[in-house]
């Protein structure tokens, strides 16, 4: 990055090539239902890295700078998406209420939740099962799963977010 600021184009190209897989991984972990957008986002972030390269300070870890930009671009995309898709919502919801009987839905929900939970890594699945489904305290869940208390809280939070995104993706 410092080489890029000085104008060394070979080093800069190598640096950008190194970034691409990092960014692809970053977005793939966060965008479950928008896989098509990943490459666009990677390119947009590379462009942002290029246009904002004067804001990098050599005393700062380059990853924290990079991921802050990547996160910003992700939020930007999701926000514009949310704005556009909000227009469709009223119709979709109307349809669901018209054609579904709530009782079988609840059964399916329980089964689906089990299936979805199995897809989560242990450090997210166990905290959710203990804290949210069995109603244990964070401390008890930490003792039982062998994770630290903060890891349990983070696991619940991340796991729920992942679940929410998967559920949305399947609709």
């Amino acid at each position, binding site marked *: 990055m410092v080489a890029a600021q000085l*104008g060394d*184009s070979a080093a800069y190209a190598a640096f*950008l090539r190194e970034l*691409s897989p990092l960014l692809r991984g970053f977005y793939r972990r966060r965008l479950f239902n928008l896989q098509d957008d990943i490459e666009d986002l990677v*390119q947009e972030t*590379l462009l942002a890295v290029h246009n*904002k390269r*004067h804001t990098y300070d050599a005393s700062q870890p380059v990853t924290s700078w990079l991921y802050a*930009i990547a996160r910003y671009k992700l939020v930007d995309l999701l926000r514009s998406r949310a704005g556009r898709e909000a227009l469709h919502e009223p119709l979709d919801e109307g349809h669901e209420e018209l054609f579904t009987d709530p009782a079988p839905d609840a059964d399916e929900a329980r089964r689906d939740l089990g299936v979805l939970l199995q897809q989560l890594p242990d450090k997210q699945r166990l905290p959710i099962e203990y804290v949210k489904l069995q109603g244990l305290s964070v401390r008890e869940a930490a003792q039982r799963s062998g994770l630290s208390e903060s890891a349990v809280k983070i696991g619940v939070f991340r796991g729920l977010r992942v679940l929410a995104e998967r559920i949305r993706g399947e609709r």
Partner: protein
Amino acid sequence: MNTDQLIAALSNGVEPVDPGAARRNLMLAAAAGFVAGLPLLLTLLGINPRLAQAALLPMFWVKLAFVGGLAAAGWWTVFRLSRPGAALGAPALALAAPVLVMGALALAAMLLAQADQRLALLLGSSWTVCPWRIAVLAMPAFVLMLWAVKGLAPTRLRLAGAGAGMLAGAIGALVYLLYCPEMAPPFLLVWYTLGMLLPAALGALVGPRVLRW
């Protein structure tokens, strides 16, 4: 265009950038904001005719240090908010420091004053207009700061807008200092701080829209 082509296009003949440019642009914007506030002060209020006498009082310098300290800490905060991934802890503490010191002075002044004079210490003679004047005098700096911050890379837009607004408020207060005769710490603590928070609130409001890049 695939990603490899994009990388080739971006890196081919990449122009060197000055890593000090971010710092310099933000400094220039802050300085220009102060200078641009001066004609506004002269047309709206003028300069305190007793400024020279006021400058002999220690309290004048305490006031200057309070506002100047907030401006410096605000600038530091905005600088961090304008660069992706920069930590905010230290500048946030620096922002709190002048307020805490002035708070201690205000408390002391209130305790030392006689009960029937405390309200006068708090309200002075201009509390109804002071915050608004500071906010108005901050407007040139407000526009310049938002413009400078947008040219960098803020990633938390609401916070960056608020920071830029607060810094503009502190710059506006520096300008207003040349007119305002108030010297009581309780007055400065409440009304000067409020005057800086008005543009900060405005900045938080418009930040997400205006600062987007």
